């Protein structure tokens, strides 16, 4: 996994070592980090993405807007419906239509379930990176509860393709409301057990507190988004700053922590899982009745539109230029991980090599989502 690339003398006279970490990692996707070390301290780090680049921005110009939906979802497939939502909001803005209220609530329901499953998957890979096998098994097992709920709603476990222009594809099935309430209550109880074995475990706190510090000014200057930014004390969340879908009528808090180290970023995500559980219970109780899909043409009218949603890793935005046909003329797609690529280097520099897994994975950088 690591290989020595070169070794040169540093300014102080001793030699520095440049190693290449990757592209195969013990948990995340393929991405290379070129790290230059003086002894055991990292003095320079630069990410080398592009191993999973598939040219999706060119592919979007060749397919009509319905055929694009599976391709839009695939960069971050465990968080598929948030990306889908961003794209469909851009299309609907250009077409000038609005989905009915029941569809907006159903879209928010699937978005929150995807947020929970994405954060639990992140947590289990954190266990892999740190060698805590129980923390690898338990979140994946508990994630099954929510993935099963997603299957009841859409028919597919993670490749949903549920949100289409004009609404959603299916209605809420019978019995889903009680199941959702039961399962989210069970999940909140399980989060307390995770606290005991992992988050209050002195081995983890010794490895994560004070590691990978990112100050508030630096995070804002480099354009970080998502829980990586909220762990440094900035309360920026698209669901509160530019509310969309059913979020203006729902009641939730933006979870921030002040310290800015790996522990703060991790706890910001766990707080978000709790908020999402509360949101799911609110949505299934408050959902209005009515139609769930409106007719919409397969056409992209002339014009431009920009839309953004809060995905699990940060702000995901779609800029769409249409020329009147059925295919987009230009679709610029910037995901949360792509924005967070800028903070990988400041988080790693100054720390030990052994702190690298904790610091890097606490940003939740997903290489496939950044490369698209």
């Amino acid at each position, binding site marked *: 996994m690591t290989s020595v690339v070169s070794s040169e003398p540093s300014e102080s006279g001793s030699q520095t070592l440049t190693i290449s970490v990757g592209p195969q990692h013990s948990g995340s996707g393929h991405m290379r980090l070129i790290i230059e070390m003086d002894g055991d301290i990292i003095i320079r780090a630069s990410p080398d*993405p*592009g191993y999973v*680049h598939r*040219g999706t*921005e*060119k592919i979007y110009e*060749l397919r009509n807007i319905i055929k694009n939906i599976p391709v839009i979802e695939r960069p971050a497939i465990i968080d598929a419906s948030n990306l889908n939502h961003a794209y469909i909001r851009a299309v609907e*803005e250009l077409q000038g239509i609005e989905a009915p209220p029941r569809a907006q609530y159903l879209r928010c329901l699937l978005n929150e379930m995807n947020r929970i499953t994405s954060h639990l998957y992140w947590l289990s890979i954190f266990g892999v990176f740190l060698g805590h096998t129980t923390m690898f098994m338990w979140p994946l097992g508990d994630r099954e509860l929510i993935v099963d709920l997603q299957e009841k709603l859409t028919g597919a476990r993670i490749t949903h393709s549920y949100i289409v222009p004009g609404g959603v594809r299916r209605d809420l099935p019978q019995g889903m409301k009680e199941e959702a309430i039961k399962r989210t209550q069970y999940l909140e109880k399980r989060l307390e057990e995770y606290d005991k074995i992992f988050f209050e475990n002195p081995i983890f706190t010794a490895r994560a507190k004070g590691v990978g510090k990112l100050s508030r000014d630096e995070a*804002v*200057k*480099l*354009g970080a988004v998502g829980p990586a930014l909220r762990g440094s004390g*900035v309360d*920026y969340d698209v669901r509160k*700053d*530019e509310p969309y879908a059913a979020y203006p009528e729902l009641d939730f808090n933006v979870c921030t922590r002040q310290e800015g180290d790996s522990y703060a970023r991790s706890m910001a995500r766990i707080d978000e899982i709790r908020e999402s559980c509360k949101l799911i219970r609110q949505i299934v109780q408050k959902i209005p009745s009515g139609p769930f899909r409106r007719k919409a043409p397969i056409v992209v009218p002339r*014009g*431009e*539109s*920009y839309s*953004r949603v809060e995905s699990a890793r940060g*702000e995901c*935005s779609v*800029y769409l*230029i249409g020329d009147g046909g059925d295919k987009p*003329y*230009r679709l*610029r797609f*910037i995901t949360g991980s*792509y*924005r967070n*690529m*800028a903070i990988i280097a400041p988080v790693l520099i100054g720390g030990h090599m052994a702190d690298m897994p904790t610091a890097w994975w606490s940003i939740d950088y997903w290489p496939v989502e950044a*490369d698209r």
Partner: protein
Amino acid sequence: MTTPTNIPSLEREDHILDQLKEKFGDAIKESRVSRRSRPEVTVAMEKMLEVSRFLRDELGFDRANGAGGADYLRDQKMEVIYHVSNLARKETRDIILSVKEIIPRSSPKVNSLVSIWPSVENFERETYEMYGITFDGHPHLEKLFLIDNWDGPPPLRKDVRIPTD
């Protein structure tokens, strides 16, 4: 007669565009507000650095959301589009201003805005490798996603066809 209440007022967006037009006059080629919270402005290529500095210091747009390019083969021009917003004031966090500049397709060279908004560094690198637009003043202008020994044309241009079955 009562005015309909569901038409949003576009005062904030109009005010931003008015201030820009007042300060820079001719350098602003086009400006309009397409929908709520989405003003757009097209700036002459040479004045882009000055306009960006004004946006950041006077009007408070301290965050760049993204940057990208577009290729208009029929009109023989390319565009570089920056989306900027503000983070410090909570009430205006929803406004996203699109700042565009039009460059001729035969000699695509513009000034880089990394000195004003450091977060556009990676986006400008990607626009360089995908469209062939050179950014003067960028600290590391090299390939980001494409493979290191790619010697073909910039892939996202409209005259580059990729085989589809």
